[in-house]
Structure formats: structure tokens, C-alpha cells
């Protein structure tokens, strides 16, 4: 990094966010205290400062929320689609109006850089509500019969990596199709869901249509096990996803799971190198690598390995790690001490198994949870860092010699969420896309999202699709 042109601190102001000391549960259109009386703390991962307390929802709280959602379902599902659309459009507009506040909040609670919260998360959140608002009165034309019916009450459990975006992915299609929801945000990032509850009130959404029950994993377990829900939607780890599948087995609940990934980002020797480097960086370091579809395995053709790695290291040296609220920060804080420990452990395993570790020199802040962007070369399919999901800013570099070998290595994983192909040759791009067993294939780009495009996995990355027309199916009785 140049020393002459040092960027002065450019912090986004925190004052746009008005945080209460503690939050209750949002049930039946009101914030209420939990029945258990337990409170949890949510901290800023960048500073370990306690941001607020929130309620540990109990099984009884979950039951109240499900009953509220059940009561609301009758009227909500009977509304004409165009009327439901009005609420969704209203929510989308309020999100846009409050986007700066929500971006700062998301950055505070999650640790992601404000640049990403502002330029990626929030625009996508609003876009998702706008998109599904448009479907609400056109469900008869979605290819699921002339008058597809909603399922009922959806129990939704979302992760901490994109708290508000994952909420949007789940809530928007559910409401558009006429369902009501009980949503459990992640234990480390409950705040944006609680602010969303306020947006629902602001939009005049009927009581009980959206209920937010915060808490840890036990709250989520109570929700998915509740006999009163008709649909479970979960995004998170494969381990928890399997447990949910076991819970739901034998019931008539519909289930969609969006789980882990170990995506291959495949770079051929005819790739547009500079853009491929950007795509690799974006693929693994976007959101600190806390992305289920992250391109965590770089498969590079042997003939350009040295050239590409030199370019990649040069680019990594310019990444700005630090205060997530600084508008020039590229890589923020790791979301929790627990996640940091997991990343640290897997990176250590990478070294122990003989892979070569490299990070650019960068100064990490003294408090909070931080991990420098890291590259492992000399990785083989046998290494743990090539097989297990790190969910952090750690890239494993493997090589291949032929397109067939690239396909074989890319598919040689229990996951199948996403993949990237970098080549200027159209025929190879299409051939590769057909061979790869992954739900999303990006070509000459990575981590591009759009509400109109379905997203979901193969194999242990889950099933069901979110987004697009396909995303409606998960919330319709078809």
C-alpha cells in the first residue's frame, strides 16, 4: 500500500442508529417480554462492545408466536394478491428510505464493512421485497396452476452472515404467497430483524403476519419442532440442517434447506486475468468469507499458476482490513469469537498438513475478532482446508491440467452450492456449466445476486430454491 497517499479515516456516523438498551420479542404486532425472563447480549464483533440486550425466546414464546401467525393467516391469505403486494411495496420503500440506518446497524452487529452493507446488502434487501411484491398478484401465472394456495405458517431460521438479506429472502416470498411467518434470527445478529419488526409496524402490516422470536439454537429448535407450522425454511450450517431434517422427518411440514458450500472458482489459461483476480478476491474475501457460496477453492490451470498467484498476492496486499464503519474498509471483523476459533483451527490444520500459508502484512485491531486474508498454496483434495467449509477469509489454491480434471476436482466435494468459471471461450464455459454439480454457476464473475435468479444447492448444500419464480414454489401448496 502506498504510504504517500494515506486515506484519512472516513467513518460512517453511528448516530443514525438509535439502539434501545434491550429488546423484547415481536409477537402479534407488539414487542413483548419473553416468558422465560432470560436476556442475551449482542456485541459488536469489531470492538466487543455490548450493543444491546435481547430476549432469549422460550418454547412458550415460540408457541405464542406460532398461534399469532396462525390467527393472522386466515385474513392475510384471503387478501387479494394486489393488496398483499401493497404491503410488500411499502416495506421495500421504507427499507430504501431507512437504508443508511439499516446499513450502519448491520455493520455494527455483524462486523461487515459499511461499503458492503451499503452497496450490496441493503440494495438487495429492498430489491427482494420489490421483486416478490410484483409476484403477489400474479401467482396464477407462475406455472403452479391457476390459483396456487399458500402453505400456512412458515417457521424460518436464518444465519448471521447476511442477517437482513437472509430475512428478505425468506420473508418476502412467504408473504407474497399469502403465508404468515415466525422468524428466528441468528444469536449473534438479532438487531436488524428487530428493526425490521418496526418497519412492519410502520408499513401497517396486519398483526401476526410477521413475528420475530430471538434466541439461541434452542429457540430455533423449538420453532422447527412446533406442530403448528406448515413449512420450515433454514439457512445455515449443514450440521444443523441435518438435525432439522431429522426433526421434520415424518411430519407434513415442507422443508427447504440452504446449507454450506465449498465452491470451486476455476480459472483457465485464457481467462481475463485482471478480472479473474478481482473475482477471486470478491469470491473469498467478500463479507470476510462468511458466505455459503464463497469461492473458497481456487482451481487454477497449472500453466498460469505462477502468474495468477503473483497477481492475486499483489491485489491482496491492497485489501484494507479494519474498522467496519470506515467507508474505505474492504474486510471487516469476524462475526464471533466462536467463528474466529473455527477459522483459526482450520488454518492451523492447513499448515500442519503441509500447505503453504501466506497473508499480506496487515495490522489487525487490538480488540474484536479479526483474521487476516489468507492464501494456502500447495493444497490437495486430501487437505481438510480443501474439504471442510472454513466460512472465513481463507482461500485454498489447487491446480488442474485439463478441463476434465477441473470438473472432477470441482465436483469432488459433498457440497454443491456454487461454482465459478473463468474463460474467454464460450463453448468451454457452457460445457463446464453443464458438468458442474452446483446450484449456481457464475461465469467470468462471482458472488453476483439478483432477486430474479434462483439460488440453492445440490447434495449437502441443501435443497429448494430461493429467489426468482422458483422461489415461490417453496411457499405454495403445490
Amino acid at each position, binding site marked *: 500500500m*502506498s504510504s504517500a*497517499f494515506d486515506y484519512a479515516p472516513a467513518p460512517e456516523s453511528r448516530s443514525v442508529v438509535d439502539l434501545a438498551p434491550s429488546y423484547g420479542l415481536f409477537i402479534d404486532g407488539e414487542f413483548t417480554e419473553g416468558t422465560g425472563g432470560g436476556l442475551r447480549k449482542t456485541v459488536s464483533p469489531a470492538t466487543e462492545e455490548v450493543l444491546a440486550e435481547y430476549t432469549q425466546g422460550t418454547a412458550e414464546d415460540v408457541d405464542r408466536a406460532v398461534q399469532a401467525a396462525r390467527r393472522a393467516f386466515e385474513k392475510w391469505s384471503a387478501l387479494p394478491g394486489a393488496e398483499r403486494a401493497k404491503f410488500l411495496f411499502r416495506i421495500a420503500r421504507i427499507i430504501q428510505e431507512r437504508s443508511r440506518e439499516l446499513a450502519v446497524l448491520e455493520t455494527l452487529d455483524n462486523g461487515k464493512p459499511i*461499503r458492503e452493507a451499503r452497496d450490496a446488502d441493503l440494495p438487495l434487501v429492498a430489491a427482494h421485497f420489490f421483486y416478490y411484491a410484483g409476484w403477489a398478484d400474479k401467482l396464477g401465472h407462475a406455472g403452479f396452476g391457476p390459483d396456487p394456495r399458500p402453505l400456512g405458517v412458515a417457521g424460518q431460521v436464518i444465519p448471521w452472515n447476511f442477517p437482513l438479506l437472509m430475512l428478505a429472502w425468506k420473508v418476502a416470498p412467504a408473504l407474497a404467497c399469502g403465508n404468515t411467518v415466525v422468524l428466528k434470527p441468528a444469536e449473534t445478529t438479532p438487531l436488524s430483524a428487530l428493526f425490521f419488526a418496526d418497519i412492519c409496524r410502520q408499513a401497517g402490516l396486519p398483526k401476526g403476519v410477521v413475528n420475530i422470536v430471538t434466541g439461541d439454537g434452542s429457540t430455533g429448535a423449538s420453532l422447527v419442532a412446533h406442530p403448528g407450522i406448515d413449512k420450515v425454511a433454514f439457512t445455515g450450517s449443514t450440521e444443523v440442517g441435518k438435525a432439522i431434517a431429522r426433526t421434520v422427518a415424518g411430519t407434513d411440514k415442507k422443508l427447504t434447506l440452504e446449507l454450506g458450500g465449498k465452491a470451486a472458482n476455476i480459472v483457465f489459461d485464457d481467462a*481475463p486475468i485482471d*478480472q479473474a483476480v478481482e*473475482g477471486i478476491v470478491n469470491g473469498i474475501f467478500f463479507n470476510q468469507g462468511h458466505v455459503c457460496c464463497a469461492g473458497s477453492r481456487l482451481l487454477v490451470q497449472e500453466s498460469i499458476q505462477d502468474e495468477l498467484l503473483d497477481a492475486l498476492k499483489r491485489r491482496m496486499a491492497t485489501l484494507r482490513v479494519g474498522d467496519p464503519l470506515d*467507508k474505505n474498509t474492504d474486510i471487516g471483523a469476524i462475526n464471533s469469537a466462536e467463528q474466529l476459533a473455527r477459522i483459526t483451527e482450520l488454518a492451523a490444520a492447513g499448515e500442519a498438513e503441509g500447505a503453504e500459508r501466506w497473508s499480506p502484512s496487515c495490522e489487525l485491531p487490538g480488540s474484536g475478532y479479526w483474521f487476516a486474508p489468507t492464501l494456502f498454496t500447495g493444497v490437495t483434495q486430501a487437505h481438510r482446508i480443501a474439504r471442510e467449509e472454513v466460512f472465513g477469509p481463507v482461500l485454498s489454491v489447487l491446480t488442474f491440467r485439463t478441463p476434465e480434471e477441473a470438473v472432477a476436482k470441482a465436483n469432488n466435494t459433498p457440497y454443491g452450492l456454487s461454482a465459478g468459471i473463468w474463460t474467454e471461450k464460450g463453448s468451454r464455459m457452457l460445457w463446464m456449466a453443464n458438468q458442474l454439480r452446483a446450484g449456481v454457476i457464475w461465469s467470468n464473475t462471482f458472488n453476483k445476486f439478483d432477486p430474479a435468479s434462483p439460488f440453492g444447492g445440490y447434495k449437502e448444500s441443501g435443497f429448494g430454491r430461493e429467489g426468482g419464480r422458483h422461489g415461490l414454489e417453496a411457499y405454495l401448496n403445490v
Partner: protein
Amino acid sequence: MPTTVPAYGKEAAGRLASMADVTASDGALRRFLHGLPGVDAVGLQARAATLGTRSIKTTAKAYAIDLAISMIDLTTLEGADTPGKVRALCAKGVHPDPTDRTAPKVAAICVYPDMVGVAKEALGDSGIHVASVATAFPAGRAALPVKLADTRDAVAAGADEIDMVIDRGAFLSGRYLEVFEEIKAVKEACARPDGSAAHLKVIFETGELQTYDNVRRVSWLSMLAGADFIKTSTGKVAVNATPPVTLLMLEAVRDFRATTGVQVGVKPAGGIRTTKDAIKYLVMVNETLGEEWLTADWFRFGASSLLNDLLMQRQKLSTGRYSGPDYVTVD
């Protein structure tokens, strides 16, 4: 990586000679240029846009504004130019802000060849260079002897820098070696009797070359032919300098230095009017090339109206108030 020598230095020719095999024939040059990595337009534009979101404030902004002023090729290229107009511009270049003598001077005054003598005299020993466009600027549609005479005339009149235009027609029809040879010939015409030479900037007119692949190819072609600077545009067509095109050229000079050890400068020109825009370009230089390129020796802005906006922003930073266009000079 080989040790770095400047493109205008004596050793550069030897370095370029090591690449002579790729320019030995039309076929060899074509194979080389077409073998350069492709450019993904969407990705390039996205990267330029992301760099454009950098937030440059307070001390960093003050640094960037002064740096940008010192990199300006303050330009007048009008049919209506007169000695009086050129002298006024020179005076402004020496002291851009009459109310604040701490404002840095610009890098060069850029004029048509017949105004070089006037500019040279007006600038005296200020240290500001005189840059002259040449080679039948802006279209470049003249016979080679005319272009060379145009160049020699400007050099003889005292030009420190020559801004030539390439033959876009020849490039677009694939006559790469012809373009290469023409640049080489102009470079030779930049030589002075005393053995020194005017620095050569090669203008691509990227708005006419259109594709990013063409921009990467013409960048390499020009650097192989001995360009000291590569420059986007004449400022005379609809599309002039853009951030993606400039970013691509920055990547080209970076890769060229990594291959040959020869350092070449970059000059975006045309359409850069605001401080905000200028800072975006400096951020691109900073994060693509680093501080080795962050001087007027290696990066220039071809601009006329940019200077006043930089001065107004400079006054705002030092006084805390916006001054307005009546507090900067119109020349």
C-alpha cells in the same frame, strides 16, 4: 522483475530491443497482441466503479488536490487560440490561485505546435513543461512526412513533450506494424540536436477504438514502440477518458514494467472536470500502481476546466467556505 528504468531514459531502448522478436513482423506483432489476456468488460467496469466509492477526506483530500493540480497538463486546443490566450493560460499555470501562492503549479501547458514558442517564452524558467500536440492532431489523417514535420517543428520551437495521435484507421484495420513503425518514427523525430529528446505521449483516442481488448493491445503496441506516456484521448470526440479505460491502461503499464522493466506514464484526457473525478483517478493509480506512479512524471490529467474546481475545493478546505467561480480565474 527486472530493475526499473524510465521509458525516456537511455537504457529503455536496450530493454525494448529484448522484445524485438514480437515486433519483427506484422504476423509476430499480431500474434503477440492477440495473445494478451482478454478483458472482461463487466468486471473491469465493476472494479473501476468500486474504486470510485473510496471516501477521501480531510488530510487525504488536501494531499490529493495538490497532487492533482501538480499533474495537470493545462490545455487549450482551439482554432481560436491566440498568443494572448496562451500567455494568459501560462500565467495561470505558474500561479493557479492568485490569492494563495502555496497552490502548486501545474505540470505542463498543452498547446498546438504553432503556439509552442509563445508558451515557452511565457513560462520561462518556471519549470513548467510545454507540451505540444502533433501528427495532424486530432484526426491524424495526414501523410507520415507531414506528421513528422509537424513533430520536428514543435520540438524545434522548444516543446518538452509531444502528444501524438495514432492512426486509428490503420489500427482498426489490423495494420499493427504500420502503427508501430509510425510511433517509432515520431519518437525519432522527438530527438533534439543535443542528443536529448522531447518526451512522447501517444494518444489512442479510445473512444474510437471502442473495445477494451483494443485498448490493451494498443497500449502494449505503443509501449513497445517507445511511448513515454500513453494517453486516452484527444478531448475532441464524444467519448474521452473514462475510469475503466484508464484503469485498463494502468494495468497495462504495470504489466509492461513487470515484463520489461520499463516504466511508462499514463494520461487520461478529456471529460475530467471535477475534483471528485480527479480523486477517483488518483485512487485508481494508488491502488493499481502505488506511489511510484503518483507524481507528475508518471501520471497527468489532460484538462482545462478541472483546475478551477480543484482550486475551489482547495479554498474550501483551507477556509471552510465555498468561494464560488468568481474567486478563481477564467483563463
